[in-house]
């Protein structure tokens, strides 16, 4: 059994080698031979996973789609350093403007003859405006490209921060067990009693609306899955002989977790995190759509759908179709990549159960 900790004190029937469990000795000991073994192991695993991923055409197509959308978001409009930053204020960081029009410009139609008297501002798609214009006469394609900045940044930031919360908590809960495990997992169980959107809405009800409030709400909901998955994985990984061996050699808990357990337990967490980017973007758009996300002025995809909610019923299909299509394509691409990552790490499996 490898559940006991190093520093738990001498136990009956166990030989305790004095002098090799202190932090100082252990560090020297580690650097002497461990890194070569560890780096080879880690590189091998990722290398083979990448080789399998590369053969999966659907997953590659998904990755290419995400890459394309990210580039669109970055190069849609020039990026300037915001005015609040002292020295660099107003500096141009990214000068390219791919978007055909300014997303906030309501006068892109000036000088052009409206196609019908019925649609003065909201033009159907044409060569002039590929995806048409919205109720205020703004170019929808440009708004979608610019809006990708909101959606994608929320997705990536919320997932990364949630990983930094969920992974340590899950690792601690799984490795140490006992009291700590109980506390962490009961909190996770408790928050899991609320559906994803409802918990996010509750957080927003407390904090109010806004970009960082939205990100925070999605982090609160997001870390649960990582903590729960990683804990379960660690419970089985820590029973391996190499973990007992590392402990017997006097490695500290931290180095046992970080070097020996985590590399062998992270695969399902990485799969979940990849899929979560889609879930989070979808949730952010849903919250934007119901009016609890970003402000109506932003061009976030869900918000764009919200302001055009009546358009669909009135037959102005382009105003609601394209922003929603962007969400759909992004989530689809993320799911393809996520499935590809899962198959790459676990080539035999049929695909495990998905957490929301």
């Amino acid at each position, binding site marked *: 059994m490898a559940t006991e900790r190093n520093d738990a004190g001498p136990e009956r029937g166990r030989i305790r080698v004095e002098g090799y469990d202190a932090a100082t000795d252990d560090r020297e000991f580690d650097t002497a031979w461990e890194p070569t073994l560890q780096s080879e192991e880690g590189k091998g695993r990722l290398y083979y996973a990448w080789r399998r991923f590369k053969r999966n055409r659907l997953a590659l197509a998904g990755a290419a789609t995400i890459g394309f959308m990210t580039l669109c978001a970055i190069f849609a409009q020039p990026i300037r350093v915001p005015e609040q930053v002292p020295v660099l204020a107003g500096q141009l960081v990214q000068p390219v403007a791919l978007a055909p029009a300014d997303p906030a410009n309501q006068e892109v139609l000036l000088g052009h003859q409206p196609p019908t008297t019925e649609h003065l501002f909201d033009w159907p798609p044409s060569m002039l405006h590929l995806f048409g214009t919205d109720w205020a006469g703004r170019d929808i394609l440009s708004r979608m490209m610019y809006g990708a900045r909101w959606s994608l940044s929320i997705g990536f930031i919320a997932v990364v921060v949630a990983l930094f919360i969920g992974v340590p908590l899950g690792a601690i809960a799984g490795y140490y067990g006992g009291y700590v495990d109980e506390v962490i997992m009961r909190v996770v169980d408790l*928050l899991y*009693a609320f559906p*994803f959107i409802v918990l996010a809405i509750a957080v927003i009800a407390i904090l109010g609306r806004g970009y960082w409030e939205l990100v925070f709400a999605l982090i609160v909901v997001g870390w649960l899955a990582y903590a729960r998955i990683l804990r379960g994985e660690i419970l089985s990984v820590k029973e391996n002989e190499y973990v007992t061996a590392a402990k017997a050699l006097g490695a500290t808990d931290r180095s046992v977790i970080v070097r020996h357990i985590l590399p062998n337990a992270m695969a399902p967490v990485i799969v979940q995190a990849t899929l979560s980017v889609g879930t989070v973007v979808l949730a952010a*758009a*849903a919250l934007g759509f119901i009016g609890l996300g970003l402000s109506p002025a932003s061009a976030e995809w869900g918000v764009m759908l919200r302001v055009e909610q009546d358009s669909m019923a009135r037959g102005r299909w382009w105003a609601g179709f394209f922003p*929603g299509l962007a*969400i*759909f394509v992004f989530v689809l691409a993320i799911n393809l990549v996520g499935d590809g990552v899962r198959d790459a790490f676990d080539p035999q499996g049929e695909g495990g159960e998905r957490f929301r």
Partner: protein
Amino acid sequence: MSLRRYVLKRLLITIPLLLGVTLATFAMVHFIPGDPIDFITLFTELDPETKQEIRARYGLDDPIYIQYLDWLADAARGDFGTSITTRQPVTKEIAERLPFTLMMGSMAFVIAIVTAIPAGIAAAYHRNTKVDQVSRVAALLGIAIPNFWLGLILILVFASWLDVFPVLPPTGEGLLSSEMIVYTLLPALAIGTGSTALLMRLMRSSMVEELDKDYVTMARAKGLPERTVVGKHVLRNSLISVVTVAAIQVAFIISGSVVVEIVFSYPGLGRLLVNRVRNHDFPVIQALVLIIGVAVIFANLLADVLYAYLDPRIRY
């Protein structure tokens, strides 16, 4: 372990979870920055005496645990206080809308089960053929499609282009009028699509697993007709995991209804929640969050008990 003992054990785990949910819901209001009475008086300027009087009336001077116990005792009796926006009892407001959400949710659930299980069986039985490929693509699309966008597209196609569905819900109609039932179909479809895709894939994979087992070969070797092999033996065993996941779909459907009710202006709980969050109507928000949390806990409990009932190995 007998089933009864298993259920009892599972119930015992549920009780602290339920208490935790009530505590979290209660604590929610205390995380809001600012003075709670501002939300009762809607930020009107008041002299200190009146403020003190309001504090006393709402029990805001009591120690926090007394406030919690009072709130819990009231909630247990079905009294969630008065709505700040409408000055109506919260319970009444919720009771008016609950049947609509229940109807829409159960319709979504039925749609999901009725399409997912046959489709999953077909995909598993015709594994690695065109049928399977089509179902795989359909599931990928169904999981990725945002339910609110699907709702908008359904409105566009069926209400605007084909003009076979009304755009707005019938007003003044009772729950069981035919207009209301017809109107509920589209939102139920928008919510149910995600669950359908998920359950279909699950049905397929669990059936593929069963089809490979020795008892199937054995049943076929005995000369049983294929209908009996699949219908009586394989189907029963592969339904076990599907049934439990179906129970968990309750949370998924609640999430979906919150958003889809906005699309269709549906007079249910989801729209109530969203509207009241915008108005900072915390008694209503608290009550809804609590009800949803308790509903999900019981759905999970039901899923575990069903699983243990269907598959006795789980109990040990």
